[in-house]
């Protein structure tokens, strides 16, 4: 758990933006939408893992 994840998400975001631009420029709007969605879902899985990690830590500390 460190700042790596932050950079990872930033890199994926920028790459998805590039993919979106390229696909839109080539006239494939629907596929561009799909890549954006795929990127969002991939990042979401990574984020949710960390959020659940935080929740379990807080739960053990505060005896919730």
């Amino acid at each position, binding site marked *: 758990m460190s700042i*790596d994840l932050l950079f*990872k998400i930033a*890199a*994926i975001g920028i*790459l*998805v933006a*590039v*993919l979106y631009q*390229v*696909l839109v*420029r*080539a*006239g494939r709007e629907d596929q561009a939408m799909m890549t954006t969605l795929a*990127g969002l879902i*991939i990042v979401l899985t990574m984020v949710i893992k960390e959020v659940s990690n935080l929740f379990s830590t807080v739960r053990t500390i505060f005896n919730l």
Partner: protein
Amino acid sequence: MITVKFILLAIILGISAFIGITISKKYSTRVKELKEIQRALHIFEEKIKFTYQPIPDVFAEIADKCSPSIAQIFFDASVNMEYQFAGVAWENALDNSKTKLTKEDIDILKGLSKMLGNTDLDGQVSEIRLTEKFIDTKIKDAEYERNKSEKMYRTLGLTVGLTIVIILV
């Protein structure tokens, strides 16, 4: 352990970039091959207009002058003609060719088969001219397609590879 991981990641990146480049190459190869075929048809037209060589010989001669993928079609056709009708031989050669041409391009070229060895000189020449004109529009199509897709696929391959690598790191 870490070096192995990074080597594998580099391989993934390289492979996806390579796939992108291969797909993008398909478009420029198609343009090149169409131009080559047009040139070959031109030679063919001149040959049957001014010399009275049999078609297999003309095809063999064209095969000598073209780039390998196109030459293969003419070479196959000229070999096939020894035991098949000219039209059938031409169609078979087209079906067995390993070019990047689309089905439509092949269909246009197959239109030649009806007249090969069946009509008189004028009929053949006009048929070849017609095919050349069709190929011309196809070249324009292919160039438009290439401008649109070539760069996209190259960037796509690299970006997808980078994304996979970043997700896996």
